[in-house]
């Protein structure tokens, strides 16, 4: 269970997330939708211990995730820019994940590379936007983390890659249920994927949507 109580994230005088209170039961796929600057990434960064909350509390499985070795090991947060070196080859990035992540599934990663037609000899800086996004999917899903967070993961993906992503995501989720959070500002795209959302001028808390339950907002 992810429990947020009055969670606040500030950057100087700018409030990115304002006293958010929320419970997310485990083992489901969630979509986090919101416009640019609505605080999605700040919230996800706190969930993944990339950033400390300015105020409020956060509990993942009953514990504060910040600098919690056990929880961080079981969390994968893939940002749209990817936290890798542009000079590295895909093979080096995957090797690093294999070295550091006890739950890393190398065989699954290799299969996903085939699905997304990624050549592991390519350097990151030579990849297109969509290929980078595909690599993000590989890193996120093959981590086999209990909490998998994919931020704007299908930016630049073409229709084929996007369809492959949803297919793989759902197949893997059904095989190994876990908590997955997808964030996007492409609200129309998310709606087209069957979430059936109608979004008004709502706060970020209301933008958390349980996709597997078919838009239970």
């Amino acid at each position, binding site marked *: 269970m992810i429990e947020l109580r009055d969670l606040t994230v500030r950057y100087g005088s700018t409030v990115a997330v304002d006293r958010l209170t929320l419970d997310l039961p485990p083992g489901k796929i969630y979509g986090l939708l919101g416009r640019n600057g609505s605080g999605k990434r700040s919230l996800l960064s706190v969930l993944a211990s990339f950033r400390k909350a300015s105020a409020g509390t956060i509990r993942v499985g009953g514990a504060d995730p910040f600098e919690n*070795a056990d929880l961080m090991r079981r969390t994968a947060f893939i*940002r749209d820019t990817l936290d890798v070196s542009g000079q590295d080859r895909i093979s080096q990035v995957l090797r690093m994940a294999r070295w550091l*992540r006890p739950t890393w599934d190398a065989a699954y990663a290799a299969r996903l590379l085939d699905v997304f037609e990624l050549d592991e000899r390519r350097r990151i800086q030579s990849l297109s936007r969509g290929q980078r996004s595909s690599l993000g999917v590989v890193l996120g899903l093959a981590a086999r983390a209990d909490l998998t967070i994919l931020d704007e993961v299908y930016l630049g993906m073409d229709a084929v890659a996007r369809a492959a992503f949803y297919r793989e995501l759902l197949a893997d989720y059904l095989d190994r249920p876990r908590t997955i959070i997808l964030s996007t500002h492409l609200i129309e795209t998310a709606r087209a994927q069957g979430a059936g959302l109608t979004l008004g001028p709502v706060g970020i808390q209301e933008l958390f949507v349980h996709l597997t339950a078919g838009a239970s907002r």
Partner: protein
Amino acid sequence: MSPSSMVVFTVLQRIYRPVAVWFTALMLTGIAIADAVVVRSDGDPALSLWRLIFGSAAKYWLLVIGIVLVTMHLRQFVANGVTRRDFTVGSALLGLPLAVGLAVLVPAGNGLESALLHAGDHAWAAYPGFSVATGLAELGRSVVIDIAYLVSGLAVAVGFYRYGGRPGVLLMVPALAPIAVAEGFLGAGSTGDVLPVAAAAALAVAVTGLVAAFFQRLLRDVPIRRTAG
């Protein structure tokens, strides 16, 4: 020390071991060629090229490693589920033995160079003499200076990584204090007149330790920044 720190150390070692081998091999080759050129031209080196070139290259490389650890590796490791604390400990496990190892190579190479130059009957009037005593003194000096460079590299990077441009520039003043003290009192130009060598070494170690502790506090809850790279 947590198992995760050891994993960080092992991974960093895998990354840097080949680089260290290449670095040392290139230095050996380059300085051997330079020495050979000097000898063949009947020059009389007034200094140890190994001590000058390798000694400088080693400390600047450690400075760069300190910077790269924070600016590049920190987010890679955290993104792979490693805590900042384990990353810091793992980095120290890599950096400190590396700094000591490179420092050992300074007098060791100097001794080898001296032995090779004196292998023939040639007398080198200007080349500085080498003995076990001078080698040990050089080792102690190099260890302190090399660790100072590593810590300063880390500290400069932490200041910029956490606070960005202008505050980062301001934080360079304390961040570079280890280098300033170590080089000022133990560097090539120092004579020991201002401060005896032992006291200078103790001061440099103390300043390096204080700066390391201060910047470790800044690192322990630093937000992991996004980059476009």
